[in-house]
């Protein structure tokens, strides 16, 4: 029986993660030195690093939760590796399920061959970004900087349009389940089917949601937005209290997330 938590797997994964960590440290040091060369205030750079670190805590804990969820079928080392590099709970689950299905595998991973096959599919299927960035980055960044030289004002509008385009897609996404309000049946429930893999077979599972469950993300976003706006106003009023501006986003993130607990209790979710 293959042990998905074998010590050797932990060691291999630790080595790879050390290299990935090395890349981040390398770029941090280089960018920091360049910032100092450009005459940027060290204090300002430190503040940026501190805010980034604090802001990262809650999303990183969410990733730990995904590692725990995946570790039940795959052991700890593989999910640890996969979620420390590009990947996500939903992606790794889909990759593992597709491969398990193709192998006719039932239950958890029990042979080295199954483990290797799943790891290969997970690795190859999401590899595109890692090599495509070196291929395209230089060309695209050069395009951006020549735009900046040609027309500074338009370059500014261009950059803002990129950010707003991305943000608007995610704001829209927050509302994607609001339609449950009018698609619910007489008992106030919405029934959806989803495909899951169980015992080597694809089966249809029905899930039910309350009609109002789609309002939870909307309310959470509203709370976070209000907190951010209030902190923004306060930071302008009390210019000397620097932490308000520095930690406004992490604070609005955490308060928003906490507000999800009562909102979910109120509006319901999966039944």
């Amino acid at each position, binding site marked *: 029986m293959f042990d998905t938590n074998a010590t050797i*797997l932990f060691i291999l994964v630790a080595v790879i*993660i050390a290299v990935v960590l090395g890349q*981040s440290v390398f*770029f941090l040091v280089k960018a920091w030195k*360049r*910032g100092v060369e450009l005459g940027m205030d060290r204090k*300002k750079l430190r503040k*940026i*690093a501190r805010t*980034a*670190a604090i802001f*990262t805590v809650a999303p*990183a804990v*969410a*990733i*730990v939760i995904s*590692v725990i969820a995946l570790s039940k079928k795959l052991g700890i080392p593989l999910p640890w590796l996969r979620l*420390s*590099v*590009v990947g996500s709970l939903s992606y790794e689950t889909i990759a593992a399920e597709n491969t398990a299905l*193709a192998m006719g595998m039932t239950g958890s991973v029990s042979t080295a061959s199954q483990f*290797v*096959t*799943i790891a*290969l*599919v997970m*690795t190859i*299927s999401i590899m*595109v970004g*890692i090599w*495509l960035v*070196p291929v395209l*980055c230089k060309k*695209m*960044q050069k395009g951006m900087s020549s735009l900046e030289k040609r027309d500074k004002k338009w370059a500014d*509008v261009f*950059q*803002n*349009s*990129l*950010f*707003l*385009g*991305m943000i608007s*897609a995610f*704001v*829209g*996404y*927050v509302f*994607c389940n609001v339609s449950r309000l009018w698609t619910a049946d007489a008992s106030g429930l919405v029934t959806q089917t989803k495909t899951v893999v169980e015992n080597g077979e694809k089966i249809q599972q029905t899930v039910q949601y309350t009609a109002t469950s789609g309002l*939870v*993300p909307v309310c959470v*976003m509203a709370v976070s*937005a209000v907190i*951010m*706006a209030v902190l*923004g106003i306060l930071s302008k009023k009390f210019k000397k209290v620097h932490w308000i501006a520095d930690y406004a*986003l992490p604070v609005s993130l955490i308060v928003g997330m906490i507000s*999800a607990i009562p909102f*979910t209790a109120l509006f319901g979710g999966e039944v």
Partner: protein
Amino acid sequence: MKQQKPYIERVYRWGLIWNLSVMGILMAFPIVVAILYHAMPDWQGLLGGLMATAPMYWAVGVVEVISYIPMLGAGGSYLSFVTGNISNLKLPCALNALEQAEVKASSEEGEVVSTIAIAVSSIVTTLIIILGVVLIVPLTPLLENPALTPAFDQLVPALFGGLGVVFISRNRKLAIAPILLMLILFIFVPALNEGTVGIMVPVGVVFTLILGRILYKKGVV
């Protein structure tokens, strides 16, 4: 003495070397495990798994690379596409840092600031996951506590509420139309959900760019 190349040129070189090396060792993991355990992959499973998984994620990957590179900057792009969690962590982190430092993303200072933010975020994420793995036994009941689950389920809305306020309030004229478009699409098109939001990012970006160009020509923005 040979003159040193500009910083950004060196970033391209470092990025190329690092990303190809990381790609190599990521691929090496399953291969080394196979050798150590004298196990061959299940070829049929590999082919089937890849056919079912790779085409869609490769397509999404190409779209993501093209839409995120101009937002993340050079150093930030190389790092983000290795360490992942771009839209739900790295990009918001970089945007917040640019705001905080009051520098433009397209300037060299912007490049430095976004790289620092993304590098720190990657390091902290990696360390927290290590801590999570070490403490997985005591942490599991705590983190899987049903009372806490809703909070982590709503991470993305909580993130984009705060981020949205900053960017929307500063660019009101440019923001209204794309927000309305996305609201209508996501509310009334059932196929748009968590799985397809990644595909809607370039749609939003292209729409906003066209709108931005029109408003710019008219002198509105």
